[in-house]
C-alpha cells in the first residue's frame, strides 16, 4: 500500500447522494482475477453520456472526488475501491460513507474524508474552478480561498495510511494472542473451534 500524506489537485464535483457500488463498478466488471484495469468500467452507466464529468477535459484524472451522503452503499465489492484508484482517485470527500466501502478504501490507501454538508456544498463550488488540498497529518481540507475544514479520522487508520502499513503483517505479529484465544474457545465453546 502506498503511503498517503497529502492529496492536492482538482476535485470532481460529483455531489450525488447514495452512490451505490453498482454505479461505481457494474457487476460485469467483477470477473477479473487481478486488481488492475477497472478504471475502464468505473461509473460506466454515467459515462455513456459524452458530456459526463469523469471524462471531461477539466476533471479527467483528478485525484479527488466529492460526493453526497452514503457514498459506496450496496455490495462489498472491493472492485469499487480498485476502480477509483485506477481512475487516479486517492481521496473521496462526502458527508458519510457506507461501512464496508470505507474499510475497503482504507485498505487500498484511499483516504475517505467526512465533512458536514455545508462544507461539501462549499467545496463543490470551489471545485468547479480551483484545486483543493487535503492534508492527512493535520487533518484539514483547504482551498485557495482560505477555506479550512478539519476532519476526524481513526488514529490507527491515520497511522497506517501515513506509513503505508500492511495490516495483515501487523496482525500476524499478534499470533500468540490469536493462539491463546483459540485455546480458550476450544476449551469453553468447542463447537465453534472447528467445523465438523
Amino acid at each position: 500500500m502506498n503511503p498517503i500524506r497529502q492529496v492536492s489537485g482538482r476535485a470532481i464535483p460529483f455531489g450525488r447522494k447514495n452512490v451505490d457500488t453498482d454505479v461505481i463498478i457494474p457487476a460485469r466488471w467483477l470477473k477479473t482475477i487481478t486488481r488492475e484495469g477497472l478504471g475502464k468500467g468505473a461509473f460506466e452507466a454515467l459515462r455513456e453520456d459524452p458530456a459526463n464529468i469523469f471524462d471531461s477535459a477539466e476533471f479527467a484524472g483528478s485525484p479527488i472526488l466529492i460526493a453526497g451522503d452514503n457514498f459506496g452503499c450496496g455490495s462489498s465489492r472491493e472492485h469499487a475501491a480498485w476502480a477509483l484508484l485506477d481512475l487516479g482517485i486517492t481521496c473521496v470527500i462526502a458527508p458519510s460513507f457506507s461501512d464496508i466501502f470505507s474499510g475497503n478504501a482504507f485498505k487500498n490507501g484511499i483516504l475517505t474524508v467526512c465533512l458536514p454538508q455545508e462544507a461539501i456544498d462549499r467545496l463543490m463550488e470551489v471545485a468547479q474552478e480551483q484545486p483543493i488540498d487535503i492534508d492527512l497529518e493535520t487533518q484539514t481540507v483547504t482551498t485557495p480561498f482560505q477555506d479550512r475544514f478539519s476532519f476526524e479520522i481513526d488514529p490507527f487508520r491515520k497511522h497506517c495510511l501515513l506509513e503505508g502499513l500492511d495490516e495483515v503483517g501487523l496482525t500476524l505479529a499478534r499470533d500468540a494472542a490469536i493462539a491463546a484465544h483459540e485455546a480458550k474457545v476450544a476449551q469453553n465453546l468447542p463447537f465453534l473451534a472447528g467445523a465438523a
Partner: protein
Amino acid sequence: MTNTARTLYEKIWDAHVVERRDDGTCLIYIDRHLVHEVTSPQAFESLRTSGRKVRRPDLTLAVPDHNLPTTPRRTATGARVPIADAESAQQLEALEANAPAFGIRYIGDADAEQGIVHVVGPEQGFSLPGATIVCGDSHTACHGGLGALAFGIGTSEVEHVLATQTLLLKQSKTMEVRVEGDLPAGLSSKDLILHIIGVVGTAGGTGHVIEYRGKVFEEMSIEGRLTVCNMSIEAGARAGLVAPDAKTIAYVQGRPMAPKGEAWDKAVAWWNSLRTDEGATFDKSVVINAADVQPTVTWGTSPEDTVAIGGVVPAPESFADASKQDAARKSLEYMGLTPGQRMDELEVQNIFIGSCTNSRIEDLRAAAEVLKGRKKHPNIKWAIIVPGSGLVKAQAEAEGLDKIFVEAGIEWREPGCSACLGMNPDKVPAGERCASTSNRNFVGRQGPGARTHLVSPAMAAAAAVTGKLTDVRSLTN
C-alpha cells in the same frame, strides 16, 4: 452501579475479542469464513506472493455461485459443459485451484450441495448461532437469521481472515427494529423487510448492527428470518440478528457440519443464553406496527423506494429533501414511470424467483402455491425459478414443485446467484421490467437498462400469472 445488561450483539462481540486496543479497536476472531469465486482470487494471489498460509482452512468453506450459468453444468456422460464467458470460466478455475492449494474444503459447481453461499452455509450446519461469520459478499448479513454475527467484507479483509482468522474492527452501535403485533394474513417476511427498509432508509442502519425483535420474528420460520437479516445491508446495517431460540436449535441439529455429542450439548446451553438482557439499551430504536405492512414492491432504483402494491408511483416533489427529489426524478426516468401510476397496473415482462434472499424451500413452496394449476401470462417473455442450492432443488423436486413451475411455463434452473446480478448469462433486457425476489433494484443490477421491481416469491408468482404487478391476495383469497 454500572449497567451490565448486554444486547445479543454485545454478547457475541465480547465472546470473540482476541485483543482490545486503547483506541477501542478490537481484533475479532472469525469462526466461519465462506469464500466464493468473485471476491477471492486477488486475496489468494496476495497470500501466494507474500508466502502466507491460510491459518484455519478447517473454518473455511469455498463454493462457486455468482458466475455459474444456471443451465445444466454436466453432459449426460458427466463431462463439464464449458462456460461460454471466458472470464467467468477463469474465476471458477481460479477457485477450483486455490481451494485445494490452500487446503480449503470445496463444494464444486456440479456437486449436490452446491448453491449460493448464503444458502449453503446454514444448510450444511457450517453457519451456527453465536458464531462470527464473514464472506466477501454484503448479503452475508443473511446468517444473522440463525443468531450469528455475520457480515460482508472486502477482498483485503478476505485476505486478512484467510491469513489470520481475525479482523480488526470497531464495535458497531446497536439498533433495535421492534415489530409490534401480527403480520396481516397472506404477507411474507419479504414484504416485512421491504417495508422496514422503506421506513429506515438505505443509510438508516449505517454504523449499526440491527436486532430484529418482536413476536413476528419469534413466530417466523428460520427461512423467513434469513430473508429478513439478508436485507439488513439494504438498510445500511452491516449485520442483522434474530436471537436464536428452540426453532433455531431444531433447524441446526443434525446438519452435516453441525456439532454433535457433548459439543452439541454445550452449544445448546450457550445458544440459550444468547438473547438481549432485560434492561439492555440500544443506541437507536425503530418501532414498526405489523398491521401497517402491505404486500410491498419497489418503484425506484434504491431498496428504500418501497410502496404498497395498492399504492401509486410517488411524485418527486413529495419528498422533503431536495437531493432525494432529484434522485427520485432520475429513478423515475430510468424506470420509465410517471407519478400517480398505479403499481398494480404495471406490466412486467420478466420474472425472477431466486437469490440468497428468496431461494429456500419455503420461498419455492410459496411460489408453487400461487402457480399451481395456473399458466404464466402471455406478456411474460422470460420467467425462471432458481433454487438456492442443489439440496433445495432436490427437496422441491421431491415435493413435485418443479412440475408445477414447468406446467405454468416457468423454467426450472440449476442453483446459483443467477439474475440477482448481471454477471452470469441470466439477465433482464434493457427497458424491460422484472418482478424479482432478489435484494437490489440498483440501476443496471440485473443487466444494463433492466428495470427491477423487488417483491416476495408469492408476489413474483402472482405477477407471472397476471403479467403485471399484482396483489397476490387477489389470487389466493
